[in-house]
């Protein structure tokens, strides 16, 4: 018997939890949601975003009429705008109960007694959740890719790949946040609710208040920085009132700034969660 190294142990733990995740009801519910969203957006795309469709006023970003490039960007913008909610819901489904359920359903009485560092256990579980979240996001992007190719008969531009990577990074940051809250609470319900409160209520209200009172974009809020996922097509965040809409894509410096914010969220929350998990105990 050779004791596996920590990296090997993380692999074993990830595979174990990945199985549990993809067989869970949460995974199938997320799968249903993503298929529903893709179906609705497909309907919208075919109706309004083909070269021959009559574009509705509420989707017009430019008063000069639409050229084909802008039409394609607006198609992607609308898809990504809807898609940014997927990492939020996937993180809540897979991340929020990740640790709290160990306490609530008492599986911790087994998992805490395995002779592996808690950090290995945590990292393995985090990677498993990240993997299933990435699968959900990838299904959404595949739907978008097929629609794009069907409507415009070309492959999507580089912004499509960039947007995908940013969405994955956003999912990583959201999972970090949800895992951190999951370590703090011993009940799943609290972990679920707190994510919604922080993301939608606290971040949403803070963004609104700061942008109105100080006329500045609170880029340090995760919900604001997440907008970069669709701003790589058109630099417009409908929830922010300080930046005038622009039909140009976000600049490199803006992308770098928002990426940094998401990386900081992911790293800080991940490390804080591990720190708290090390001393987590079951009463």
């Amino acid at each position: 018997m050779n004791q596996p190294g920590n990296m090997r142990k993380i692999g074993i733990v990830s595979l174990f939890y990945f199985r549990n995740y993809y067989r869970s009801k949460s995974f199938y519910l997320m799968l249903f949601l993503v298929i529903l969203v893709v179906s609705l957006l497909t309907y919208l795309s075919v109706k309004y975003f083909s070269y021959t469709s009559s574009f509705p006023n509420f989707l017009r970003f430019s008063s000069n009429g639409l050229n084909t490039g802008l039409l394609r960007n607006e198609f992607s913008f609308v898809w990504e705008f809807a898609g940014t909610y997927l990492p939020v819901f996937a993180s809540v489904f897979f991340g929020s109960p990740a640790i709290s359920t160990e306490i609530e359903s008492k599986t911790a009485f087994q998992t805490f007694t395995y002779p592996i560092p808690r950090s290995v256990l945590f990292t393995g579980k985090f990677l498993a959740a990240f993997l299933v979240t990435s699968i959900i996001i990838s299904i959404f992007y595949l739907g978008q890719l097929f629609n794009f190719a069907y409507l415009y008969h070309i492959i999507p531009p580089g912004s499509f790949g960039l947007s995908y990577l940013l969405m994955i990074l956003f999912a990583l940051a959201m999972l970090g946040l949800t895992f951190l809250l999951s370590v703090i609470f011993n009940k799943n319900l609290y972990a679920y609710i707190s994510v919604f409160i922080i993301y939608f209520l606290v971040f949403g209200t803070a963004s609104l208040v700061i942008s109105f009172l100080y006329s500045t974009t609170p880029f340090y809020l995760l919900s604001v920085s997440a907008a970069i996922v669709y701003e790589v097509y058109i630099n417009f965040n409908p929830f922010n009132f300080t930046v005038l809409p622009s039909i140009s894509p976000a600049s490199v410096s803006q992308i770098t700034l928002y990426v940094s914010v998401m990386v900081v969220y992911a790293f800080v929350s991940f490390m804080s969660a591990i720190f708290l998990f090390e001393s987590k105990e079951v009463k």
Partner: protein
Amino acid sequence: MVKIRIENLSKNYGNVEALKSVNLTFDREGIIVLLGPNGAGKTTLMKTMTGISRPTSGDIFINEHSVMEDLSTALSSIGSLVEQPEFYPYLTGREILNFSCRIRGFTRSECTERIDEISRLTGCFSYLDRKAGEYSRGMKQRLGLSLSLLHDPPIIILDEPTFGLDPKGMYQFRNILKDINAKKEKIIILSTHLIGEAKEVGDRIIIINNGSIVSDFENTDAGYVRIRVDGSKDSRALQELASDHRFEDGYLFLRPDEDISGILKRLVLDNVRFDRVEEYSDLENQYIRSVGDS
């Protein structure tokens, strides 16, 4: 030699002192029973030994590895079943066992072999490929026992392992424990609040109450059959029996392997009146004395 050393171990939950400066050493193979009423501190002691809870003060050394400083190394010598086991509902029993086996460094083929062997011993082989979410309490208990034995640990910690099992399940579970203990190769620490269970399987019994160790002794109590006889020892038969048997407070104590019916017949023929014949255990009395009104 495997050894567990518990030094000045205390555990508080808020203002409640669940364990009060407990000192214990386990250095001899066999079954050690932690006996005590509900809330005495048995489960807390086991939780701190297995890393589920952290001590408030003091330490536990398992093969000289501190659970406070080197928990994962300390845990590598332990197989445990604490409280009623729960498992991930979407995984099969085999997958759960396989994970525990692989994470400890066994190869795939070693794991397959060990899982088959242990699950046959504990009686969960037949349902190992079903998802754990479908298991009954008894099935989970057997899977939990398999998990604790899978890596052949020198120390096994079992917290009320027969709790929630039907009488047949309890009987089978105790027999499995006796089989494992037959070779006296492992330290098995078992908690229970059932005196009969402690008496039946324990080599050493530790009575715990209100977070403290109140009694610690070798279990030599095979039990007695005691007869309450009426009056004095005038009868010749009674005098003879009392000379080589324990006779206290009007009770004549007989060993269970004696010819009880022959002795009763002898007393009847000598006109000795008796009104009660019953099983008796010193352990029971000692337990009652130790835990008081708890």
